[in-house]
């Protein structure tokens, strides 16, 4: 059962981080330069959100399988911190740069602040993946 949930968690990685990465790459001006940023976001983010929901549910189940062990795990704690940071990054982007998307919607390479969000997002998700993968390699336990 644990393995099935874990498989769902890993498979959904493709949907969630995969579509998020494409959006981030567009924000960095590295893909689909001719497509409006708002269109990429509108068409792909519903898939990203659906993926995130499955990630959250399967992730919560994986945590629930061994709550104390996870809570004491340094990589788990770091992963949750990175998750919060990734959330803040998304929130800040939607409430600042993206408010003015009409001004740079068609730019092949979006403005610096949008590129920063895309880059930061890619780095944070890469961190999250690494920290998640590290959870079984725990070396230091919290009390």
């Amino acid at each position, binding site marked *: 059962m644990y393995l099935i949930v874990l498989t769902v968690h890993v*498979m959904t*990685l493709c949907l969630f981080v995969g579509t998020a990465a*494409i959006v981030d790459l567009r924000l960095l001006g590295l*893909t*689909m330069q001719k497509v409006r940023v708002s*269109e990429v976001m509108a068409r792909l983010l519903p898939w990203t959100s659906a993926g995130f929901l499955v990630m959250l549910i399967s992730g919560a189940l994986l945590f629930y399988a061994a709550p104390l062990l996870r809570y004491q795990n340094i990589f788990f704690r770091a992963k949750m911190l990175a998750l919060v940071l990734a959330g803040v990054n998304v929130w800040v982007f939607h409430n600042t740069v993206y408010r003015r998307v009409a001004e740079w919607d068609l730019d092949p390479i979006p403005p610096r602040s949008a590129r920063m969000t895309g880059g930061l997002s890619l780095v944070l998700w890469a961190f999250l993946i690494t920290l998640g993968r590290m959870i079984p390699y725990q070396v230091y336990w919290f009390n």
Partner: protein
Amino acid sequence: MSVLDFFERLQYSPLLVAMRSSSWAFPVIASLHLMGLALLGGAVLIVDLRLLGFGLRNQPLAQIARDAERWLLVSLAVLLPTGILQFMCFAATKYYYLTAFWVKMAVLPLALLFTFAVRRKVAGADETGMNPVWSKLAAVVSLSLWSTVAIAGRWIGLP
């Protein structure tokens, strides 16, 4: 030399012995493999979703396929070396005996072949003249093949 002999040679080559003695090398390589998987997922999905009539459906299919292929190649450039290293780490003592590994090795070439031969043709063809059943079928086959590769990979499991 049998397959098992060959796998043993790989596993006990000096580089791999050094890699196994590090407690970090394996999870770090596995993490990079997962990042590659995520990127591959994105690159495969935007084209398959488009073929199914979802995602960026107002954009020309050929354009999306071209943009996605670049990132698909990048993801494969990450996945293949990190995958081969993980396999070499425990080739003779673990992978050789795992059905999931052999399933993955059988389906991976099929997935690559289908993506770069069949689906590429479908995505590059003139959309107006094509029966939508074919593009949908191509997307379903592509998704099934890549899912099998990913699930079999997950089933190989932790070392």
